[in-house]
């Protein structure tokens, strides 16, 4: 490799770092002030790109001048900034007091709605953007040609960093933002209207995301997958840099840009893995990121969110339970093939959701990547059957073992963190698993996955397979429920409510959480294995973000405050989704809207409503 090549490679790394920083700086600012991790930031980025491919060509029709190009870019960013204001006023303002998990879910609801809105407005086909007038040529650098637009992008990052620094240190608005990042309640007690400050911050954050998107149009076509791919990268940048720290985001973006552009030379297949590994290492060494600070505790919800009481089944619950169990077993006798299929899937998701609530509701470990263990269980089972030539039985034993093994590996890092950093790390690990399954085409079949994951002959009929699934899932749920009621479960709740006090009475909090994470991984892995056989195939969507969100939505719907809520939530969520999805082209929109509605109106879920009813009776 000659020197010129290395320089150019490094320059292109800087160009992507620059773009990444512009987007991540907005995310980190919004988080710093509002303490909300805004999934919709990726949607703002995507909207910025779509706005630009609409506005810029129209402007260039008047005159192909750089001035009009950049006017178009800034106008697009400003429009997106206004959308950020709309989101703050309509949604975020109602969310500041709710637990962070609900905030994440609600902003993900916005992601889903924007996805459908984009498809509806701009259609499914990618839209290429115009190239920037005056920057279309290449520049000769040490014998290599390098696009002038990329050189321009390299300058954008430091320019934005400089402007943000001026804004944050030389204007009252910026000083208030920095003060609110430390202690927003105190800022309010000094007479600052937080609502206006938050609205302003959202405008700035969304503007930066939109700017990042609009600046991309000469490089990539606007497409409807841009949002989720950028948001994970932006999360990684903000987490590595320290959430709330703009200079940290810059540093992290530069490191990741270089890692990507040189990593691709050494390990072309696993660049994504490298990035997430870096994040894991940084978080273990510096749990608040490179330039971040410990989260100030002020202003957080005081009561723990999760299972508060663990009552035994009363008479009514026993009756309900008996009816549900009888109905489950009777489905193959009375139901048609479709009903049996849905019932089987409900059982599988019930186990997966229950295992997630074992972590979230019982342990306070908010995992944002639970689909990883579900999906890895599915891949373990599926690959053993198709590539390894094993039968279903050993594959179904391997599935929970795989789930447990990866949960133990990832969990070792995860339990070292708390709060939002923990949630981001679980998400990152899930994305590693996703990336491996997606990119390792020879083994995993890549995007298409692997087909032909069929049960053994005796279990091949839908009815028998239903009973097999029912047996596994009911046993799995019963076992996890037993653990919740056992001293181990109580210990986890103690650590959830006060880590310090639990620590002070001699509980090894990390060890307990690690074991819980592993156990939940095993249960999710078993669910994933069963799911692979019920579908007959495996593919990367099984461990993608939307799957993790589905599990969380089940908890939200069922209510994470009760032990059995997750089961009810899984049943309701999956039946509704399965029923509505074929009926409309806009199911994402409705799913997103329902998640938001649930968070706002019904934050205790179905079983919470049932509990309130019982208390009133």
């Amino acid at each position: 490799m000659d020197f010129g090549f290395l320089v150019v490679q490094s320059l292109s790394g800087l160009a992507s770092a620059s773009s990444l920083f512009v987007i991540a700086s907005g995310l980190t600012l919004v988080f710093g002030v509002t303490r909300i991790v805004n999934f919709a930031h990726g949607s703002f980025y995507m909207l910025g790109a779509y706005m630009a491919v609409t506005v810029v060509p129209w402007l260039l029709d008047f005159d192909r001048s750089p001035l009009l190009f950049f006017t178009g870019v800034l106008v697009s960013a400003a429009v997106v900034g206004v959308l950020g204001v709309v989101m703050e006023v309509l949604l975020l303002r109602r969310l500041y007091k709710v637990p962070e998990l609900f905030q994440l879910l609600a902003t993900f609801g916005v992601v889903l709605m924007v996805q459908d809105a984009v498809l509806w407005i701009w259609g499914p086909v990618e839209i290429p953007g115009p190239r920037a007038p005056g920057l279309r040529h290449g520049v000769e650098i040490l014998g290599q040609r390098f696009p002038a637009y990329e050189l321009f992008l390299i300058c954008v990052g430091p320019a934005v960093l400089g402007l943000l620094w001026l804004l944050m240190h030389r204007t009252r608005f910026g000083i208030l933002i920095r003060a609110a990042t430390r202690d927003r309640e105190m800022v309010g007690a000094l007479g600052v209207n937080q609502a206006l400050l938050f609205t302003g911050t959202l405008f700035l954050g969304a503007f930066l995301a939109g700017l990042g998107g609009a600046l991309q149009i000469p490089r990539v076509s606007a497409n409807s997958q841009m949002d989720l791919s950028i948001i994970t990268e932006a999360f990684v940048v903000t987490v590595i840099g320290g959430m709330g720290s703009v200079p940290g985001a810059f540093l992290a973006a530069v490191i990741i840009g270089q890692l990507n552009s040189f990593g691709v030379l050494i390990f072309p297949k696993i660049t994504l893995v490298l990035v997430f590994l870096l994040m894991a290492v940084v978080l273990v060494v510096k749990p608040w990121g490179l330039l971040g600070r410990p989260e100030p505790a002020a202003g957080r919800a005081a009561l723990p969110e999760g299972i508060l009481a663990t009552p035994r089944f009363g008479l009514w619950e026993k009756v309900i339970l008996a009816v549900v169990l009888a109905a489950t077993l009777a489905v193959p006798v009375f139901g048609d093939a479709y009903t049996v299929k849905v019932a089987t899937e409900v059982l599988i998701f019930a186990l997966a959701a229950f295992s997630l609530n074992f972590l979230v509701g019982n342990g306070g470990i908010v995992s944002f990547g639970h689909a990883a263990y579900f999906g890895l269980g599915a891949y373990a089972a599926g690959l053993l059957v198709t590539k390894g030539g094993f039968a279903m039985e050993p594959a179904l034993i391997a599935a929970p073992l795989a789930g447990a093994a990866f949960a133990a590996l990832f969990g070792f890092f995860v339990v070292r963190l708390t709060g939002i950093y923990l949630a981001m790390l679980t998400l990152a690990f899930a994305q590693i698993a996703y990336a491996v399954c997606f990119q390792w085409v020879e083994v995993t079949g890549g995007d298409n996955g692997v087909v032909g994951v069929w049960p053994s002959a005796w279990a091949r009929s839908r009815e028998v397979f239903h009973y097999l699934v029912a047996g596994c899932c009911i046993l799995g749920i019963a076992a996890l429920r037993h653990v919740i009621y056992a001293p181990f479960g109580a210990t986890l709740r103690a650590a959830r409510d006060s880590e310090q006090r639990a620590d002070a009475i001699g509980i090894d909090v990390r060890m307990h959480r690690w074991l819980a994470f592993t156990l939940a991984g095993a249960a999710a892995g078993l669910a994933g294995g069963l799911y692979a056989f019920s579908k007959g195939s495996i593919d990367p969507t099984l461990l993608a973000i939307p799957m993790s969100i589905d599990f969380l939505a089940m908890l939200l719907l069922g209510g994470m405050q009760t032990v059995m809520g997750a089961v009810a939530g899984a049943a309701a969520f999956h039946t509704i989704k399965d029923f509505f999805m074929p009926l409309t082209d806009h199911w994402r929109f409705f799913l997103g809207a329902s998640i938001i509605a649930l968070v706002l109106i019904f934050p205790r879920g179905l079983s919470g409503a049932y509990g309130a009813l019982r208390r009133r009776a």
Partner: protein
Amino acid sequence: MAEAVLEVSGVTAGYGPAEVLFGVDLTLERGEVAALMGRNGAGKSTTMKAIMGMLPPRAGQVRFAGQDITGWAPYRIARAGLGYVPEDRRIFTDLTVAENLEVGRRPAQGARAAWTVERLYEIFPNLAEMRGRRAAAMSGGEQQMLTIARTLMGNPEAVLLDEPSEGLAPVIVELMAEAVLRMKAEGLAVLLSEQSLDFAAAVSDRAYVIEKGSIRFAGTMAALEADDHIRTTYLTV
């Protein structure tokens, strides 16, 4: 009797299921310094948070400058002219001294001369010397001065001063007493919570004693100093 600037009547408040205040009544007159005395956990800070709207009262009423401010957001109460200096100071540690003051800045409302950065630097010369320094790199006493100066930047009519002498060296405590008297001389009303009778007696006109969330004594500072029974029952440790 002078005109009351702050009237608290029957305020109850608490955290989650825990009740802390059980119907607190007190008044603060224009231009006076009143001390809210009590032991740790008696409800002094909670009373101040309830007045300030940071812990909205569950019952009762808070009136300030003739308006009913019960249930208002803290920022509106601050804008109405009620300043708050929290017990744990809550300095913005990432900001410089000058930036901390900037966060507190609000325009003056009455005819009184507005507080400016220069005037505050006169009263607290230490702050002037370190105006460009990050607040994290200040001593406890310096932070206490900064937090008072920051609140004065809002040009309040009255100030709630939560335990200004707590954990400070005797020299600094004297500076705090001077600062309170200076505020009084400027015409501000001050409600300060205190555990130390010496400090309270040095600066206050009147005193309230709070215990288990209820006011047990209200009277002049001289009356409190004369009342051995109240002092031994509610104040001495």
